[in-house]
């Protein structure tokens, strides 16, 4: 299994989830977003250390997908794990911090 395989599965699942969300089927959309997030989170582990941009984009996507699945604890966990890493690119750091704020706001509601 490679980054591309996990990532492609995630994209297809997220695409289906967006369509369900668009037609108002929130429950099934959230379930599919969670599956997409699981795949994107798995994809992070397959990114070589030197491909920082790829890792950053993948991590931000994973956190955003957990948020869309309303799995706020998982979103927080993945974001904090990435932010504690040594090689987080600046763009990803900013996006992960912003996503954390959004997640924490949603958790407090």
């Amino acid at each position, binding site marked *: 299994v490679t*980054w591309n395989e996990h*990532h492609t599965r995630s*994209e297809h699942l997220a*695409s289906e989830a967006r369509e369900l969300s668009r037609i108002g089927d929130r429950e099934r959309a959230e379930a599919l977003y969670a599956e997409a997030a699981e795949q994107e989170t798995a994809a992070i582990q397959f990114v070589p250390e030197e491909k920082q*941009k*790829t890792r950053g*984009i993948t991590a931000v*996507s994973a956190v955003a997908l957990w948020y869309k699945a309303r799995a706020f604890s998982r979103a927080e966990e993945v974001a904090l794990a990435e932010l504690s890493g040594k090689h987080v690119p600046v763009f990803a750091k900013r996006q992960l911090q912003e996503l954390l704020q*959004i997640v924490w706001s949603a958790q407090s509601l």
Partner: protein
Amino acid sequence: MSKRLLLADMHERHRALTPSIAGVYEEAASVCLSRHHAPPLDLTFSDNGTEDVGVVSWTPPNQRMIDAYANDTDTTEAGAYGCVIAGVEELRGLYAVRRAETGTGADYYIAPEGSGVNDLEDCLRLEVSGVSGGDRRDVAKRVIEKVKQARDGASCLPAVAGVVGFAARLLVLKDVWEDP
């Protein structure tokens, strides 16, 4: 050779677009363009201020499509995705390689042909917007807003802001450079 905005079969060239998404974008673009014009249409392409006139063709929508795309906001957004993605393909030779997931919205990552399969190291972020009515000044205003939004946003990845003015028959691309 004059520029052409190719709205058909975009899923065959852009790996981030499935056939159904590409179909929606093409249909939405045809509805947006048909609000103001008939095909074929001369369209001005502006890339970082350099202008060129090209052409866009589309199949005019039937009543069923017009009814299906009756929500102006959603249709303008989807039509803009189609036109701007086709625009970066024509002007920059770049292709949509994945959708950008964010907490509050989404645009696309674009990259040269063949990129984006094994990694996303060559990609740029594409920020998209569409203006249904109005003239060139309204499109220019929207470009300024999108560039500011991209600079102020959480991402400091290099980005391209793309805005299409359907009534103004103008497609604008503008680079948003990486933070120092």
